[in-house]
């Protein structure tokens, strides 16, 4: 479907999407290839651990180069603005969950992650999200901890599990 939609006309500013995409692939392939340098392609007459990663890295580099050339031949679409608010709060919330789940348990990590994530949206409403976060956390504790019996810490400091 996407291919039928006319591409946005190249704007005066911004970098060509395909040029960056090609460079990204080339870098990734180079990194992977270098990391595999020590792995043997052949191992006592059989395929060694290095063959697959090295071959795939080379192919990736090839397609990266192709996409780079396509991007250079015609600038095509530009990268539209990369937002910071969304990634920072959403992924930040995930990281906070990861850091707090073991020491503090779901009872605290749950609402904390939801409230932080909610800040990713400019229209966040303080009271609403706090109430909702606690309700959802109670629901999740009931579902995952008690109904499904997953071994997820609840409130280690308070309950000991």
């Amino acid at each position: 479907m996407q291919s039928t939609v006319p591409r946005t006309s190249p704007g005066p500013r911004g970098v060509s999407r395909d040029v960056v995409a090609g460079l990204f692939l080339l870098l990734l392939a180079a990194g992977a290839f270098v990391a595999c340098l020590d792995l043997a392609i052949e191992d006592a007459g059989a395929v060694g651990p290095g063959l697959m990663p090295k071959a795939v890295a080379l192919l990736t580099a090839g397609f990266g180069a192709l996409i780079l050339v396509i991007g250079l031949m015609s600038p095509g679409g530009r990268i539209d603005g990369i937002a910071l608010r969304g990634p920072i709060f959403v992924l930040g919330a995930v990281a906070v969950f990861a850091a707090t789940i073991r020491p503090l348990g779901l009872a605290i990590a749950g609402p904390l992650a939801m409230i932080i994530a909610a800040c990713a949206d400019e229209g966040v409403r303080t009271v609403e999200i706090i109430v909702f976060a606690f309700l959802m956390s109670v629901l999740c504790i009931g579902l995952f901890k008690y109904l499904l019996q997953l071994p997820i810490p609840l409130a280690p400091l308070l309950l000991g599990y």
Partner: protein
Amino acid sequence: MEDLFGNISLGFSVALGFKNLGLCFLGCLIGTLIGVLPGVGPVATISMLLPITFGIDPIGALIMLAGIYYGAQYGGSTTAILVNIPGEATAVVTVLDGHQMARQGRAGVALGIAAMGSFIAGTAATLIIAALAVPLSRFALLFRPADYFALMVLGLMLAVALARGSVPKAIAMILVGILLSTIGRDLETGDERLTFGWSEIDDGIDFAVIAMGVFGFAEILRNLEAPEARDVVRQRIGSLLPGMADLKASAMPVLRGTGLGAFLGLLPGNGAVLAPFASYTIEKKLARDPSRFGKGAIEGVAGPEAANNAGAQTAFIPLLTLGIPPNAVMALMIGAMTIHNLVPGPEIITKRPHLFWGMIASMWIGNLMLLVINLPLVGLWVRLLQVPYRLLFPAIVLFCCIGIYSVNNNPLDVYLTAVFGLVGYLLIKLDFEPAPMLLGFVLGRLLEEKLRQALAISQGSLSTFIDHRIAAGMLALSLVIAVVAMLPSIRNRRDKAFAD
């Protein structure tokens, strides 16, 4: 034939057990619930709900996951009709006439015919799976490692050619997926690969981490940037039962859609996405008055809905008989099976007949349940649609976090998922489709294993891929497909460059 009936009755004896029936119902209900919510597609739904199935036995888990999958498909159609946005990609076409019908106060009829069409298509597709599975898996057992390798390459190429977007970029994504799959300790030699000395990822990266990162979190980031305008129907929903005239107008489109969907679903790529488009085009061509389309023509709902459901279901065939997932959802199913220590492929039918036929029977039961769940609960779905996204997405974040943590009870997985969320977001910005990456990741290990076996048999000679006629044919076909599919993306761009 008698075999078939024997197998189907074995399946029903498994699927009609009290627990499996309950799990099927629960899966359908939860799947619909999440499928109704806009911005949460089937891939995100399944990866989010995967942990719920951890504590269940493999049969029950697969029955429930399958229920979640087609529940999400059904739910997507409900959203398409009631709100002017598709709940997921396969319902894009349903929006055109379905929402117009709703505006005319015929939402109930549109929902009713969508459910009935889907049920008929689902029934036909279940029968097709049951009939094709055994012969296909027998055929697959004849495959040697070299053939298997070639088949996977062919499948991946077809998936790329039929998918949307730039072909070179899709192939690159598959390669990146395969590269990701090589991370961790080499299973045969024990060498550490691409771990950068980090022992925590010795066992490789969990597929759930990648799936939830690029489909769960990155989707949220994408949605946050494009605020949706929801246009929930205010008119009455009206009677759910289509009248005689409606049924008559829909009968043939449903049958044609079923055939089309069942065929396209078999192919790699995304049959369930492609089929509704094909069906809509055909119905419009065949219609006596094509101008009615887009203004609430019931054929424009009945045909595509049947096609999408048939395609969604026959997509199980390559997975269950060959062990090769034709699309991202099926790739997730492979992941789910691996978590339950099941190796998808032709052996499943012979070694685990209870599991296989139980799952097939549960598909039909699930379709019947959806017919029952969806229609009376429409009022509930409408209310659910009023939950704003600003509340929805933090809840999704929490669900994903709990899910990821529960895969291995390891906070490190949660951090890694956040990293893949960022990667997924950047990939979206660079106009890469993440689905082929997941396919490549899931098939990567199997590809390497078969390559190794093939080369071990031939004592290292690559000529084994040319000497075996099946393998050579499939590899040649893959190359042709890749070149043909790639030409336009290179040529078009150049034309455009010259035109500027």
